[in-house]
């Protein structure tokens, strides 16, 4: 018999063997029945309604908390134009560009054109100081390809390429402007927006004095 305290349901009448009492049934297979046709006790299955309701309530509360946390987290993330740590290339590009502009050299550090390149909002040409040799190199920053930034440095006419790929796909192209702070040499103002038009990069880069 099933004890009331155990909380288990008694077997349904369907599971009871014909002519059997309570939970005792005759095993259908002689092999399972064993020698002498021993009888097997079938366990009562399932949970009471109360148990199911309590368990589901506990789990439901947990799910609600999980959903609330996720919604809150997404809302906070959406405020930002780009997750910079997930896309470190963005910062790397700006850092390298900053160094080139800070090293800008000579009376005309931004030539109008160089080779096939022309100064534009998507192309920056800068003459940069090479600390190691004391010479000057011409660097072209090419932002024309979405999701990719190319830096081509011409040192004694020989180009060296550095390309950053994998920029956020919704990142609209970088834009370069000249920025003039009164009394300062012209600097570079670099901006970049995300797919929703939010400003993600807004940097003023200024050449520095050289020895």
């Amino acid at each position, binding site marked *: 018999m099933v004890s009331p305290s155990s909380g*288990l349901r008694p077997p349904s009448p369907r599971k009871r063997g014909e002519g059997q009492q309570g939970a005792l049934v005759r095993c259908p297979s002689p092999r399972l029945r064993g020698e002498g046709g021993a009888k097997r006790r079938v*366990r009562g299955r399932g949970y009471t309604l109360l148990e199911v309701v309590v368990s589901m309530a506990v789990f439901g509360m947990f799910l609600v908390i999980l959903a609330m946390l996720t919604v809150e987290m997404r809302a906070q993330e959406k405020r930002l134009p780009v997750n*910079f740590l997930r896309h470190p290339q963005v910062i790397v590009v700006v850092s390298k560009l900053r160094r080139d502009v800070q090293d800008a050299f000579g009376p005309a550090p931004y030539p109008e054109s160089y080779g096939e390149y022309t100064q534009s909002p998507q192309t920056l040409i800068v003459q940069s100081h090479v600390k190691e040799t004391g010479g000057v190199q011409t660097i072209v920053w090419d932002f024309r390809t979405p999701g990719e930034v190319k830096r081509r440095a011409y040192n004694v006419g020989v180009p060296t390429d550095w390309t950053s790929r994998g920029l956020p796909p919704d990142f609209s192209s970088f834009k370069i402007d000249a920025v003039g*702070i009164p009394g300062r040499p012209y600097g570079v103002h670099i901006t970049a927006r995300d797919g929703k038009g939010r400003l993600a990069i807004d940097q003023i880069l200024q050449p520095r004095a050289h020895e």
Partner: protein
Amino acid sequence: MRREKGFSLIEVLAALLILTLIITMSLAAFVERNKRLRQASEIILAYQALANEAEYRRRIDFAQLETSKPQFISDTKVLAPLEPFTTVVTVQKTKPAVKNVTMTVRWNGGTREAALSLMRVDTGGTNLW
């Protein structure tokens, strides 16, 4: 007689409790990680504004640093995701010809802040650089 099979309510609840504890701890770690990633992105935005402001503060005449605007002169559009935010600039004379210009951005009700200090030296020249 063999033991009745199945779980009692206590067993199920205890199992649920353990499961909930494990999931909650994992979730807490996940939320904390996301929070820190977001904070790092916020700091990067703030430092862009700070670096831009530093370019402007470099140019102000050494003698006029104290009387210059105590908020950011530069454009702070990049800080839009941090709104509402405040910007403060303080100038402190550390030596006869040296001043520390400290720029600060505060957001999230003043609980988060990023600061950048710029040391200005009176070279007697144009202070172009």
